[in-house]
């Protein structure tokens, strides 16, 4: 009896704590985004809200509908859209990064659309929104990484990785045991396959084989000859002491801004802080070796919610109001990332951005196929193992390829 009482007491005690806990939880978490009360609703990243509202206002005036543009994030595409859209609470049009397309299409959350003027866009951008033979989005910006160098230390952009090694060896010649007093040539952060990919492609490596129908999940290229060559190259570079251990994103950029690292690979999102630091920098194409160095392309675009009651208006809005010279320019002005609209690409007045766009001309769209999710962890581990732990590059990358193949096979059985 005493025992039962005790258990009951504990139960009641935990009950009394519960409401408090629940109340705290709801306070901490922001309420999920809800569809605004309007005929036509657009969800877009905060940087573009004002520009889109202006485009939307024009559309509203012409078509006699009310248009609301709401601030949203890529996280909402993962977490809010799958719940809100089938319940009829989703937007009519929302922005996404193209590599989420695999999930959106297989979840039945986006409707195929007709692109009225596909020639108006950069080919890589419009193809990024091609999935299973249908177009799903109107692209508006392309993001990719490029090669940044400190002009005071490296006056001429190196064209090949061999040249990068030569410059790095020279700069790091007098290095000792004190990190702060050392200087380095090319430096990269640990792991991070996204920034390693241009090195891998320069040696002929790849992630998934590219066929006419898109990326082939049965052809994993992490263990291919080119990828192994890149891994060997990088293992040698690390062994020579040219790459300090344990560098993360922040430290890497701090090193570049202080002149401690002469060359890095980074993207347009770092431009602001690099400019602010006053370092004398220049941007160029990614170094080549046996092939050109290709970065991943991340394309942002607008897609149509398949549960929208306004499919026709959505298509007209995107084709006739967003895919225009003025609108694309306004979106570019709102957030200076590489444009996807040819006329805007030609009109870019920012030399840095033009240089970054040039580095991405041969870039490869980040695979949107679901199998890509199985790649990241094993690939990251493999790069870490050779860069930070000095493991054998061939064995490590071959093992990573096996890991990825196992996981893809498992995920496709189900």
């Amino acid at each position, binding site marked *: 009896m*005493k*025992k039962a009482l*005790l258990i009951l007491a504990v*139960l*009641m005690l935990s*009950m*009394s704590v*519960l409401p408090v806990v629940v109340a705290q939880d709801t306070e901490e978490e922001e309420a999920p985004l809800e569809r605004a009360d309007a*005929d036509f609703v657009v969800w877009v990243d905060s940087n573009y809200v004002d520009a889109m509202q202006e485009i939307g206002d024009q559309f509203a005036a*012409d*078509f*006699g509908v009310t248009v609301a543009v709401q601030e949203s994030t890529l996280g909402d595409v*993962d977490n809010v859209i*799958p719940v809100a859209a*089938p*319940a009829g609470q989703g937007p009519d049009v929302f922005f996404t990064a193209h590599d989420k397309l695999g*999930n959106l299409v*297989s*979840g*039945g959350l986006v*409707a195929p*659309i007709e*692109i*009225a003027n596909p020639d108006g866009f950069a080919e890589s951008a419009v193809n990024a929104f091609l999935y*299973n033979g249908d177009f799903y989005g109107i692209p508006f910006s392309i993001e990719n990484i490029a090669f940044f160098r400190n002009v005071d230390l490296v006056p001429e952009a190196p064209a090949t990785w061999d040249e990068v090694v030569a410059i790095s060896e020279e700069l790091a010649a007098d290095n000792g*045991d*004190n*990190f702060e007093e*050392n200087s380095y040539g090319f430096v990269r952060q640990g792991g991070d396959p996204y920034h390693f990919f241009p090195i891998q492609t320069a040696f002929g490596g790849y992630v998934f084989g590219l066929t006419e129908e898109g990326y082939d999940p049965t052809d994993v290229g992490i263990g291919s000859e080119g990828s192994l060559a890149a891994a060997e190259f990088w293992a040698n570079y690390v062994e020579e*002491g040219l790459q*300090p*251990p*344990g*560098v993360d994103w922040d*430290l890497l950029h701090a090193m570049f801004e202080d002149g401690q690292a002469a060359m890095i690979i980074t993207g347009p999102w770092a431009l602001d802080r690099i400019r602010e630091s006053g370092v004398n920098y220049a941007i160029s194409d990614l170094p080549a070796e046996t092939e050109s160095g290709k970065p991943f392309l991340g394309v942002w675009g607008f897609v149509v919610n*398949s*549960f929208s*009651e306004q*499919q*026709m*208006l*959505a*298509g*007209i809005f995107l*084709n006739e109001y967003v895919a225009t010279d003025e609108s694309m320019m306004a979106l570019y002005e709102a957030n200076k990332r590489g444009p996807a609209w040819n006329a805007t690409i030609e009109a870019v007045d920012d030399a840095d951005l033009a240089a970054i766009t040039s580095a991405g001309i041969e870039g490869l769209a980040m695979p949107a196929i*679901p199998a*890509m*999710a199985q790649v*990241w*962890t094993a690939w990251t*581990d*493999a790069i*870490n193992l050779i860069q*930070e*732990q000095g*493991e054998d590059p061939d064995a490590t990358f071959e093992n990573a390829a*096996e890991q990825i193949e*196992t*996981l893809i096979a498992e*995920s496709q059985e189900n």
Partner: protein
Amino acid sequence: MATNTTESRQKSLSVFNIGLRYLILAILAAIGSIAAIQLFTDGFWQLGIMIVVITVFFVIIFIRPDAEPLRWLSPGLALFLVFVLFPLVSTIAFAFTNYGTTNGLTKPQVIRQFEQRRYAAEGSLSYTYTMFQNAAGDIALWLVPDGEGDALFVSEGENLSFQSDAIEYDDSGIPVEIGDYVALNRADTARTLQQVSDDATFGEGEHAVQLSRARFGVASELSQRYTYDEEQDALIDNQMGATYVADDSVGFFINPENAEERIPVGYQVVIGFRNFERFLTSPALRGPLVSILVWNFTFAILSVLFAFVLGLIVALTFSENTWLNKFLKLGFILPWTIPNVITILIWNGLWNPLDGAYSKLISDIAQFFGANPGVGWPPIYNDATWARVALLVTNTWFAFPYFMLICSGALKSIPSDLYEAAMIDGANVWQRFRSMTLPLLLLTVGPLLIGSFATNFNSFQVIYLFNKGGPPIVGVSTPAGHTDLLISYVYKLSFGGGGGQQEFGYAAAITIIIFLLLAAITAYNLRFMNIWEETGENV
């Protein structure tokens, strides 16, 4: 006389009381019903049922006098049902479904969505339309084909007749009026467009058209791409001439001739124990599971042990009730009050082998003893032992204030006359601690130690923020790290470290398996320590 008045007042008061009670109950029932109806219409029928059950339960116990003892428990029980039992039951229910990114919709939703798809068949025509409207608000279209051909005049579902020589045309050859239909200008057309349903078909026969979903002012001869055939329970692809039969055991429409080919969008179905089977046969369990489990237990046990010992030492050291001690204790509580999402990032900075303060300190000590460690030493993030030690130190720092608080309180509850008696018997400090303080303390703190063990066993947040389970283990069949716990390892494998497909059904099954594991360990621990029984007898 006086007593009579009091009695009647009491009577009227109790009538008033009962009335008030019924009123409150009625309001409660109304709120419950509204909430339930709202939940039903939003599709959350499980939660709706729960609200109905709770409302009925409330009404019964407040009406039946013999249920009075339950009234005091009712708020707690209701909250227990909604916030504890409901999530548990949902998780268990999810575990038997294929609910996830590819199977998030219901079958009717998938069918409806595919029936809306259109395609332009070969040789189909495209038209430029002018919209007409009559006084009744009916809409008609004047269609001029792109290329050769005669103009058509159509309304929804039928071809309208007109006499081309009896109509007045404007400069561009478009009629101004046909019968009681009047042509709209471009701006008016745009404003009327919202009244046209997305699926509206104008005209009839082979030249039936739909408004373009890409260009304003354009209509095209489009055909329905997929039709649902109820008899076969299949979606038929009219463009490609393929049939996809619904397979309710997997939740997909599949081409019976080639199982690889299917409609990419799946639907939710109950799949029985297949999620459990999948986990128990997954490559994850053929991978480095043993070494991960060993580390998982080591991590949980050592985290609790270190936090408890450090907490106890601090509590004993600063047990005297002076203002300085109070102030110091306040400082010690701080690590516990700051969310560890933030503090782990700060610790990451402190441990950074290149510019972190602690790493620098360790490296300086090594140099003092004549070692020459070189750049990037100690390899906190890249060496299994260093990473584990650093992780345990960090985790201890988060957790010790909790045990300091608990121990401070528990120490105060040990009667001081016991110590006096012990001192008279000649027991020294260590003996007093060993045979009195520790056993009496463990009586109170024991269950908390076990609870803390369970929390640390699944300490996903700390592991993931610290180093994502790294450094990686060399040459394993599935990607895994030296500091990975079972939960972070499974997360990385099943969800590709985020950004991949969200398979809620599968995740729920894994959660249940891990829960069972943890429940077994906890039950064993409790039994082993005999804490419930001992404490129970002392109450």
